[in-house]
């Protein structure tokens, strides 16, 4: 089932999170929004963490590069990286085409759910983007 942007949570730094319950754990799938990808223009490289890395909400977990800019990727949640979309850096055009399904970046097992309350819903995020644009 395709992931719908309207069902996701968003950080002000343009990452999305899709939280599901898997075997008693809360797992958040993380990506970056279509708006962010548009703003970054032509992506050329991504630097991703390895599985097992601890990430903290609001802190950097990786980087995405265009030809003449580097942008940090900030984790919207706190927890441990359990899976990494390792092929993504080689398929950046596909990321642009499909940022929400194909374009997932990492999956994080949450260690603290309180971070979720700081994220925006889709409507609030849309509002932020329209104000910025």
């Amino acid at each position, binding site marked *: 089932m395709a992931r719908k942007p309207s069902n996701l949570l968003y950080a002000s730094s343009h990452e999305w999170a899709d939280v599901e319950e898997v075997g008693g754990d809360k797992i958040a799938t993380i990506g970056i929004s279509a708006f962010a990808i548009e703003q970054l223009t032509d992506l050329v490289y991504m630097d991703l963490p390895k599985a097992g890395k601890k990430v903290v909400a609001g802190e950097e977990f990786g980087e995405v590069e265009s030809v*003449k800019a580097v942008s940090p990727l900030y984790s919207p949640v706190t927890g441990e990286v359990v899976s990494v979309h390792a092929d993504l850096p080689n398929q950046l055009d596909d990321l642009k085409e499909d940022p929400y399904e194909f374009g997932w970046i990492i999956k994080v097992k949450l260690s603290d759910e309180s971070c979720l309350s700081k994220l925006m819903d889709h409507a609030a995020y849309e509002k932020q983007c329209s104000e910025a644009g």
Partner: protein
Amino acid sequence: MTGYLFHTDQDRREMLEAIGAASVQEIIDAQVPADVQMKVPLAIADGLDEMSLESLMRSLAAKNASAASHTCFLGGGAYDHFIPAAVDEIASRGEFYTSYTPYQAEVSQGNLQVMFEYETLVTQLTGLAVSNASLYDGGSATVEAVLMSLAATKGRTKVVTTTALHPQYRQTIDTYLESIEADAVVIEATSNGTSESMIAAIDSETACVVVQHPNFFGRYEDVQRIADAAHQAGAIVVQVFDPVSVGLIKRPGDLGVDIAVAEGQSLGNHLCYGGPYLGMMACREDLIRRMPGRIAGQTTDRRGKRCWVLTLQTREQHIRRDKATSNICSNQTLLALRATIHLSLLGPHGLRETAEHCVAKTEYARQQLSRCQRLEIVHTGPVFKEFVVRDRDGDVAELMQTAFNQGILAGVPLASWYPEMSDCFLVAVTEKRSRAEIDRLAEVLSSSLAAV
């Protein structure tokens, strides 16, 4: 007045009028507060016309001995190799000489293609996958390799080097490490001038080992064994290589080295009292995004034509600022151009012959000097193009002076770097030295004994 200015009085009047200012001073006064402006002229002698400057510089140049006026056996990281005329002729073209960093690729294809050719040549010389477009010199290139290793092995803080690594490169490493959390451990070379003992110093804290091969004493190191040990411990292997030597001996990439660095002066660059020289660096493919400096890459233009651009620029200071791989901006492109022309002229056979001449002539010099009663060859094992000589009388200064008086720059005294070798000097023999010159060196150093 002398100089290179353009404007006539008429120009100045018209320009000021267009600006709407009465004088340049008025423009300056509008910005520079009066209390910080100079009240008196700079205390620097009046300007010189071209003929006067020429006679001044010629008189200063005439006061210097050089590899042009004397027979040069000095080495220690800079060498009197032959430079074909075509190198100077081509590199002095204004289109190369007076251009700058290729920020506009369309009007810099000459420089960019040269950078791409240079990078390819360096990968061919090193057997490694990628090269940058140049760094400052051998010493700072070595430090950059160390910093790269520290970044790639995050958390590790130990850098293992050896006394057989160029002492000025070691000093440079020490200076840079002073401000960051890492320490260099220097292993004493063996009595035969090699560094196998580095292996015992490698541990799980080790970020990298830095080995020079052929080393500062001219000796060959067992790089492969050192590399195996380092890799087992998860450390990076940095080799300082001699770009002439790989005409004959195995390349860094053939020996398991991860990052190779070199002083590229030997490839068509003038001695010039130490600079500008050419810092060379090549590395494994997966380290490319940690590389410092410019990198030229191939691509196509909007009409599909093959061309070259500066690439992977997000590593660099103008984009990544405090998180850049290095702060380098201006580099040594002109020297890299010279190396590219030089290597194009030499080709594989020319470089091999140059290396063979170095080895054979160095061996001949070793034989001849070993016959001098006063002298002792310190390391008996094989060497590439230099070797350490001991003066049994312990008066290296006198020996060097005697040779100098006979028109010979005989060697580099080692006392200031190696207290235990205060009676030693380093002799280098390039392809430029003739049999007669080597015979003369031996003769002069022998007769010095008679003079005592």
